[in-house]
């Protein structure tokens, strides 16, 4: 059931929820409206304060799947996990998967999501064969790279503002099986990370690093680098049991002490250094999907994720500066991810992924001090000519957004007059 609350559980708004249950259902007459997919965005790109949310989880029908060519057509509320359940037994995966499979196809398009194979595959839009876009005028646009190409580009990474995507056609990627073989190694500093990324990107489909954001001084920038490729392997998959965090603890157990302890243990655990590792795709690609509602761990005030991109040339200096600041603040959390992006251009007008390195960190919401810390990180990102990922954002200043995404003015020509979001109203304010 759709909730109208995003993954960071902050901010919270009053919104009118209207379920869209079949693809022929007309859009409601009154705006401002916005599609709410599966609410896996952290902030307010999927929120619409005082407005309408069109919930699309019941738009979950497949239309066709060709197991010979790997072309899948489906409605936009289908989850990537549902696609995987259908196609992986026949040797196909979505070409790009974010760190959770519990996102809808529509959401994956609207944020042009990336995954651990960005250095090879680019982002979600790069594998999109086409989609249907429903406009509040009643019009339906069939968009593809060679059909309404400008609408195609505006809608990929278009933050849900160009209308409602009703169906999409995806080119899936052939994989030899559901297991992933590779290795895992510790690195002591960022130079080592960059060296590992450079030598791994050609030979490995997936690369990603976990970073200890509590480390400082000589340990600054230490972490664990993980890489792997799909392999054929005939073991039975581990038993798929999900756990659900049943309620929100009144006080969050995510504290400075628990975070330091976790990071220390994570870095030193034996599995951090493995010359030959074999993972089932589930824990490798979607490590947290078994723990349902884990976002409640952060307590009633919710949390932020800060994900930025730093261009290659600037990353070597900007990254340590950022990490020093985070370590000093003692506010960061467990899940710090570092990933080198590749050079394949994103197709969307406002796509986030571009060449460089991306860093993602979680922060419990402690109010003003957290907002100040995040703004100070934005100072570094702005100076480096980087960008912050809208899918993860609930607080960046309008000025920052407009610098990060100079094409935002072009997008305005494609925005449906009856569509809007809390995010968009916030970041397009004049300043």
């Amino acid at each position, binding site marked *: *059931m759709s909730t109208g609350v995003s993954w960071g559980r902050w901010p919270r708004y009053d919104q009118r929820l209207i*379920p869209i*249950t*079949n*693809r*022929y259902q007309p859009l409601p007459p009154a705006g401002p409206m916005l599609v709410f997919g599966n609410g896996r965005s952290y902030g307010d790109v999927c929120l619409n304060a005082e407005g309408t949310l069109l919930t699309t989880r*019941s738009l979950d*029908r*497949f*239309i*066709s*799947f060709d197991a010979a060519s790997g072309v899948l057509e489906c*409605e936009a509320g289908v989850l990537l996990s549902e696609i995987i359940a*259908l196609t992986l037994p026949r040797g196909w995966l979505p070409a790009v998967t974010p760190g959770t499979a519990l996102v809808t196809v529509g959401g994956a398009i609207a944020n042009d999501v990336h995954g651990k194979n960005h250095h090879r595959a680019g982002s979600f839009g790069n594998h999109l064969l086409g989609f249907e876009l429903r406009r509040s005028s009643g019009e339906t646009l069939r968009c593809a790279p060679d059909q309404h190409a400008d609408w195609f580009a505006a809608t990929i990474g278009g933050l849900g503002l160009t209308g409602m995507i009703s169906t999409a056609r995806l080119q899936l990627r052939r994989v030899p099986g559901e297991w992933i073989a590779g290795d895992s190694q510790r690195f002591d500093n960022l130079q080592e990370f960059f060296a590992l990324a450079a030598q791994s990107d050609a030979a490995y489909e997936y690369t990603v690093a976990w970073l200890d954001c509590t480390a400082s001084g000589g340990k600054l920038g230490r972490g664990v680098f993980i890489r792997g490729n799909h392999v054929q392997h005939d073991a039975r998959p581990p038993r798929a049991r999900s756990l659900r965090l049943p309620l929100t603890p009144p006080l969050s157990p995510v504290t400075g002490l628990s975070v330091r302890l976790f990071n220390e243990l994570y870095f030193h655990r034996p599995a951090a250094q493995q010359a030959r590792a074999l993972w089932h795709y589930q824990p490798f690609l979607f490590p947290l999907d078994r723990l349902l509602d884990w976002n409640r761990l952060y307590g009633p005030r919710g949390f932020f994720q800060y994900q930025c991109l730093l261009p290659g040339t600037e990353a070597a200096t900007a990254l340590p500066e950022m990490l020093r600041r985070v370590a000093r603040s003692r506010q960061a959390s467990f899940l710090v991810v570092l990933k080198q992006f590749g050079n394949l251009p994103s197709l969307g007008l406002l796509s986030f992924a571009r060449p460089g390195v991306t860093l993602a960190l979680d922060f419990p919401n402690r109010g003003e001090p957290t907002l100040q810390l995040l703004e100070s990180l934005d100072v570094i990102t702005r100076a480096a000519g980087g960008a912050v990922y809208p899918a993860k954002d609930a607080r960046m200043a309008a000025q920052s957004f407009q610098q990060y995404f100079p094409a935002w003015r072009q997008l305005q020509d494609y925005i449906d007059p009856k569509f809007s979001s809390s995010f968009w109203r916030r970041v397009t304010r004049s300043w």
Partner: protein
Amino acid sequence: MQRILIVGATSAIAEATARLFACRGDALFLAGRSIERLQAIAEDLKVRGAKLADTFVHDARDFERIPALLRTAIEHLGGLDAALIAHGTLSDQTACQSSVEQLREDFDVNALSVMALCTNLANQLESQGHGVIAVISSVAGDRGRRSNYVYASAKAAVTAFTSGLRQRLYPLGIRVVTIKPGLVSTPMTATFKKGALWAMPASVAADIVRAMDSGKAVIYTPWFWRPIMWIIRSAPETLFRRLRL
């Protein structure tokens, strides 16, 4: 492989049930009012593994066309092992209180059309000597309440009718399953405020499939509606008539 007819196939509960049938490779024949929605569902069921998913446009009030519906279904499926009757409409109680026309129309959809279908189906299954008829009634039919007694009495009729039919067909090995869902989050209940008692169509669907496979007589889904409805049925009228339910 089962050959199954689903009437009211665009209902959210029916669609969720059909997906479970499709996953195990059953052959399906889908009847409903909207051709484009039936086709979207049929395509989906085929991708999910249905051996066959053919469609038939049918308004439940069109009693004369029921024989044609059954004939076509049997033709396309190559026989018939089971039927699920799922269509229904949540009556506007206030409108029915001031319009007998409205009352009759809702009774046609929720009660008479179901009984007409059952009558035709029963004769068909009787002649072939095997099969399952599953009908979606409702917990609401267990006792009339001021807020929805028109809907409730139509469902009560369905419950009583299927109970009798079950006795009639039992000796022939033909099973009749009465399904009583509680509160389910579907388009029918889109405007209701949801709480802890609400179930999703997928979990109700799993109960329906299990009941049809085992030939159960009456199921409450989710199960906790059985004790809840027992209490509601047991309340003495001296008390019940004062309640504002």
